[in-house]
């Protein structure tokens, strides 16, 4: 079992990874707190998986250091790190039953058989797979396999659990369901979760903190709300949710489409911009309206369907209004 003195905080200090001339991860510093659900979010090629593989010990660190609770683990091989991991595609052992898969970590540590049995039962209950204990992975659905992978990775009570796009293979409806289960399991086991994804909805709905990565570097770190409400640059603002960018007096502001109000006609004194509706797309709960402004910009506005306004139509002149706090000034350059 894991050392009880390990609490599961990770310190990543100036870590870089070079593949030849290519810098996959470039001088990253990050403190991961004990017990938090931290998401590494970025487009493909942003270095998030490379960083995760270095934490897991499958990739050597070119420069810098990774420490667990302050003690460097840079030279500890993967099999001695005691980090659980849920792999992309799950990587279950196809020739073993669910029970043997889940108990594998304890079995290679030569724990007594009845201890393994009890612990596996506990884990299967956690992921609600008790009745599947004697099946082989090939006889399970994708969602069930995902839960086996989770139980297997948590069975030896690791201080840190690494998850590499664990929901990538599931269909959309199942993903939402599994997201809630994952969040619930995180609350119950209290282990530090480091979660890699390129799906911004997953990141927003599950994380305590999100790290947005691009080109091997960190763009911004914060809680989902901080990142959504106060993005610091255009990349963050457009990668996490949608954003309009407004250029005024040499400054750039990000403005979320749902924070703009839209009034038919051109008589509103508080109007920030005026323009004409070019396009309306209906999404059921809301509609997305694209407005061509008189300044020549294109602004997206999301309006709840119930609030209006069957009188909106393409070509209609409208005023755009928003509160001062809705526009966030971005760093430029």
């Amino acid at each position, binding site marked *: 079992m894991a050392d009880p003195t390990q609490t599961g905080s990770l310190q990543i200090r100036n870590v870089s990874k070079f593949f030849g001339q290519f810098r996959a991860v470039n001088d990253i510093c990050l403190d991961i707190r004990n017990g938090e659900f931290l998401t590494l979010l970025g487009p493909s090629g942003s270095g998030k998986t490379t960083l995760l593989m270095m934490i897991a010990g499958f990739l050597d660190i070119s420069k810098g250091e990774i420490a667990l609770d302050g003690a460097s683990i840079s030279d500890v091989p*993967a099999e001695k790190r*005691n980090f659980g*991991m849920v*792999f992309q595609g799950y990587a279950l*052992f*196809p020739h073993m039953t669910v029970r043997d898969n889940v108990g*594998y970590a304890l079995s*290679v540590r030569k724990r007594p058989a009845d201890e393994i049995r009890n612990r596996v039962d506990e884990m299967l209950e956690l992921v609600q797979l008790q009745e599947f204990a004697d099946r082989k992975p090939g006889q399970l659905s994708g969602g069930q396999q995902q839960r086996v992978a989770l139980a297997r*990775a948590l069975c*030896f009570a690791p201080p840190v659990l690494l998850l590499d796009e664990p929901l990538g293979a599931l269909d959309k409806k199942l993903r939402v369901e599994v997201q809630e289960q994952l969040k619930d399991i995180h609350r119950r086991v209290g282990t530090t979760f480091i979660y890699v994804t390129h799906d911004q909805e997953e990141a927003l709905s599950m994380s305590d903190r999100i790290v947005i990565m691009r080109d091997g570097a960190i763009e911004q770190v914060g809680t989902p709300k901080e990142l959504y409400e106060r993005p610091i640059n255009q990349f963050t603002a457009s990668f996490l949710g949608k954003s309009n960018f407004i250029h005024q007096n040499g400054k750039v502001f990000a403005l979320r489409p749902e924070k703009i109000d839209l009034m038919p006609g051109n008589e509103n004194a508080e109007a920030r911009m005026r323009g004409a509706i070019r396009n309306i797309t209906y999404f059921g709960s809301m509609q997305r309206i694209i407005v061509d402004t008189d300044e020549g910009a294109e602004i997206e506005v999301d309006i709840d369907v119930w609030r209006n306004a069957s009188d909106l139509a393409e070509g209609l002149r409208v005023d755009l209004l928003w509160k001062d706090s809705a526009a966030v000034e971005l760093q430029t350059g």
Partner: protein
Amino acid sequence: MQALNRHIHPGWLIIAPLMLMVVALYLGPILNILWLSVTDPEPGFSNYAKLTEGDALIRIVWTTVRICIITTLFSVIFGYSIAYAMVHCHQRQKTYMLTLLLVSFWISILVRTFAWLMLLGRKGLVNVTLEDIGLIAEPVAFMRNELGVLIGMVHYMIPYAVLPLLVSMQSIDQRVMDASRNLGASGSQTFWRVYLPMTMPGLVASTLLVFILSLGFYVTPAVLGGGKVLMVAEYISVQLLVTLKWGTAAMLAAIMLIGVLVMLWIMSRFMKLSTVFGGAAR
């Protein structure tokens, strides 16, 4: 015709010529051999009774089985190591290894056997080299005995052992091995508990292939055994061509066939043969 179509899938029409060919060219002759073994020279099981009269025949069968088992063991062990190396080395080295493997695969068995004849002789390269570096004083008898037959057969069989294993190893997801390490397993634990079981279908396929092919070996025992190592295939040919006892030859062929079928049946008790022969692994 309508009624016929309803009962017989039209697809059968397409494969019918092939079916006929299989029946005519394989099933027919095999049944003929089985038939010969109980009818020539007279009806009854007198040919099979010969196995119990004296130990000459039994000794030949036993020699054959022993040589085949040893050949299979060594071919599969070497084959497993070679396939493992090929899967896990760089692409360029892999291409070299595959080329070498296929070249030796394509060279005629006769050529390869005679090559060993030259290498293993009393004045052959191997003995001369060993004497020159002072490892041995007298030439070692590598030939005209079972050792020679085994060397020749293992060498011939290695490519056959490698190919099914290569396919099986290439289909393994490296992440599964990573998962094993991540869960705290050492290299040898990962090998014995994950890698070996996952390559088991390939291992069984390769073992069966090598063993069954070895049973029919003819040229290598005749040349490298120097007449001192008599295996079933050579004995059958003597019965057919020299002593003209076709019944005895047919009986021995039938025994080998039945032996192989029994082996497959025993295997099928332990695992699904469809996974061995490339079916879906479930």
